């Protein structure tokens, strides 16, 4: 943590000295952003080590390392830690760092709440991870926590539910803060349709968070009362309905998917124009597409449950609504490609991650369209085909966008340039290994391998071994990411200019690198030609 103190130097009305006052009592959007990002990276490695254990057990057929029940604990906790601990806090960290700078504000609108929404998280995850050491072990019913299975768990369930409540409170407070900042703290002249797409993506995501986190809280609270207070919300024997849980859960869960990808869309929409030296194509269409995806995300939840036996009309409605999402998503992909068209491209590490994002996220989108076809989904559902699909959109989608964002903005944060060599090695190692890891999982699923199993028929041995090798390789590659960050922050001799990237547009690039402790104490003058999207007439 000490490094950040050295980042900030004593340049600007300096950060408070002393660890406790600087970090624990922090109300500064940059320090809180840093803490979110460090927390997220920590969780990425914890969730990653769970994944490594999973891939080690699946390396070859037969049970070699763990008991089946512990395997279920691993898959459950891997999902929870990665979604709620790694991806979501990373985006909130990026929002904290960048949003005030991008809209020309001095800080977030609600700095004390910002502190609280971060500091809840370490406690939430301490509770959640402590269940590994409890009698009965960690939750093992899958991250989706379907009853009745999840209720068979031990007292870890109470810890799980409480930690989810805490994460939800944290997310809702973070979302309120972002909405308040974007709507109230913009510099004069920063109209809504002049904001960078990353700000737009987070504004929309924040509304999604506020809309659905209470739904998740409601669902898990009903689990809690079913387990401990004798209610029967989801207990068929008591007049309840286990399928009702799935409806409520996925009413949260599907917008949640977009909560994890819309900010990624925003990041990619910043990076591609910079390294194409050309304005983002179709700015307004990009904003409307984001809003459209967010709206549609509330109408598709039951495509996660095509096999629960819904009536024909329900199956058809959710199939059509799901397919509709492909249209605004397609618009985004086409616009990114067209932004590159007739640009002047260079391939620094952020651009490499952005290009890999567009290609690999699109592959995840393709399998998404296939999964939307109900009769085909009857074969795909709950197989490794689905595992491959959502890892393409979450790892090569969300996680790659986050990594690209770190490379893109770390010179602004630290004042130093990262090592381009280290960045490129990290990129190529990651992008190759992640495909070795996840692409064969499509084949496994189509051949008939269900997800969430610790052992399998020998016919699945070859691709599982390849996938595991890719997994270990991808996991090891992320050590390079840590290496890049440590090198950039502490050892890099190369100072970053305030613009960092030639032709990088947007207010954040008008501030010095490293950015001062308080961003814009005086509202900046908005120069339309320097706006992030470059062309305010559209």
């Amino acid at each position, binding site marked *: 943590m000490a490094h950040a103190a050295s980042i900030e130097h004593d340049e600007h009305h300096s950060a408070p000295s002393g660890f406790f006052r600087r970090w624990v009592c922090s109300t500064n959007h940059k320090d809180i952003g840093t803490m979110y990002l460090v927390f997220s990276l920590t969780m990425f490695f914890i969730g990653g080590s769970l994944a490594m254990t999973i891939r080690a057990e699946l390396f070859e057929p037969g049970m070699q390392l763990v008991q089946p029940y512990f395997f279920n604990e691993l898959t459950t906790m891997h999902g929870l830690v990665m979604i709620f601990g790694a991806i979501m806090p990373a985006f909130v960290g990026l929002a904290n760092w960048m949003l005030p700078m991008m809209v020309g504000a001095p800080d977030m609108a609600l700095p004390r709440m910002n502190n609280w929404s971060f500091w809840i998280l370490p406690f939430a995850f301490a509770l959640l991870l402590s269940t590994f050491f409890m009698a009965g072990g960690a939750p093992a019913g899958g991250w989706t926590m379907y009853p009745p299975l999840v209720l068979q768990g031990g007292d870890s369930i109470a810890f799980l539910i409480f930690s989810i409540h805490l994460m939800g409170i944290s997310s809702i407070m973070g979302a309120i803060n972002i909405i308040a900042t974007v709507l109230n703290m913009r510099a004069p002249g920063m109209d809504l349709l002049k904001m960078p797409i990353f700000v737009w993506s987070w504004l929309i995501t924040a509304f999604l968070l506020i809309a659905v986190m209470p739904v998740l809280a409601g669902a898990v609270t009903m689990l809690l009362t079913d387990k401990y207070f004798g209610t029967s919300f989801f207990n*068929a*024997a008591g007049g309840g309905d286990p399928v009702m849980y799935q409806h409520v859960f996925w009413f949260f869960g599907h917008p949640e998917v977009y909560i994890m990808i819309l900010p990624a869309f925003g990041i990619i929409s910043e990076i591609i124009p910079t390294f194409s030296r050309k*304005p983002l194509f179709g700015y307004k269409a990009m904003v409307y597409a984001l809003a459209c995806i967010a709206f549609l995300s509330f109408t598709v939840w039951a495509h996660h449950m095509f096999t629960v036996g819904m009536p024909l009309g329900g199956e058809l409605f959710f199939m059509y609504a799901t397919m509709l999402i492909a249209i605004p998503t397609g618009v985004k992909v*086409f616009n990114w490609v067209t932004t590159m068209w007739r640009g002047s491209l260079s391939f620094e590490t952020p651009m490499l991650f952005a290009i890999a994002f*567009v290609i690999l996220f699109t592959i995840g989108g393709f399998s998404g369209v296939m999964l939307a*076809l109900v009769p085909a989904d009857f074969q795909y*559902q*709950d197989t490794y085909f689905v595992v491959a699909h959502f890892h393409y959109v979450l790892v090569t989608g969300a996680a790659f966008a986050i990594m690209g964002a770190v490379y893109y903005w770390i010179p602004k944060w630290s004042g130093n340039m990262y090592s381009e060599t280290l960045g490129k090695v990290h990129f190529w190692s990651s992008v190759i290994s992640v495909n070795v890891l996840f692409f064969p999982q499509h084949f496994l699923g189509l*051949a008939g391998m269900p997800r969430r199993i610790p052992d399998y028929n*020998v016919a699945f041995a070859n691709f599982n071994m390849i996938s595991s090798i890719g997994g270990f390789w991808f996991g090891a590659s992320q050590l390079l990411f840590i290496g890049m960050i440590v090198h950039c922050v502490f050892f890099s001799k190369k100072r970053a200019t305030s613009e960092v990237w030639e032709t990088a547009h947007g207010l954040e690039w008008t501030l010095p690198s490293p950015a001062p402790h308080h961003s814009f104490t005086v509202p900046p003058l908005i120069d339309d030609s320097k706006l992030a999207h470059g062309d305010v007439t559209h």
Partner: protein
Amino acid sequence: MRYMKSGGTGRGATGALGMLLALASGAAMANPVPWQLNMTKGVTPIAQQVYDLHMLGFWVCVGIGVVVFAAMGIAMFRFRRSRGAVAERWSHNTRLEVVWTVIPVLILIALAWPATTLLVKEVDTSNSALTIKVTGYQWKWRYDYVDYKGNAVSKVGFMSKLAFDSNKARQLDSGIDPWTVSDNGEHDYLLNVDHMLVLPTHTKIRFVITGGDVIHSWWVPELGWKIDAIPGVVNEAWATIDTAGTYRGQCAELCGQDHAFMPIVVKAVAPAQFGQWLAAQQDAANLDRAARTAQAEPAAAQPRG
């Protein structure tokens, strides 16, 4: 079988050879095979259509992918700064944006149409000749024969759980190589049961499916679908199997510690053979009942204290 490449490992090759021999002998066997890349075409007309829909979706995606990725590739090659490319400034083109909104709509309609007609067929369980009740338990399946050709079947039902040799081999550090678990040269590790579900070919079979404890999912890929077995809910599905053979599947919904160890095996036989089998089962059940009734009667005749 078309997905099989020459075995990458010696054992894979042996398995593939076994499959070929089995195919030559006329009986369809439908295990997954090593290096299998694609979905099975299945053994029911519906499964074949599901496969066709899957391939339609796949080729549509490939087509779009080729266009999009080619455009990206060209852009990355032609418009590199290192080749002296100078960026243009345009950022808008209404006609283009309308085109790439409308074309995907048309493509999606082309996909939704066959998906809808197929789904309508899949949910129609009427006019079935055999009803099987499937119940998922932790961690085994129960099959009950409910009615056949309009007549109620009584007392034919049994539990079906993981075969003994697989169960022994799958214990942590059992020391048993999963490749050694086989039956007639077929590597059926974790895909074999003690009692198979016997079904007739060329017969519309209606499955009613429920769960006894937690949610399970009944899935035999060769039949072309899976459906969840949910406590308090009775789901329906149907299949008409064209080819006699042994078809293997697994529970597809996480159901606890032994989720991976409750396979499903369907043995499809000719209707005549099935009729004989069912009659024999029913006789055995009736005999058994008669015997038990005879045993129980003296006790039941005694006056209650």
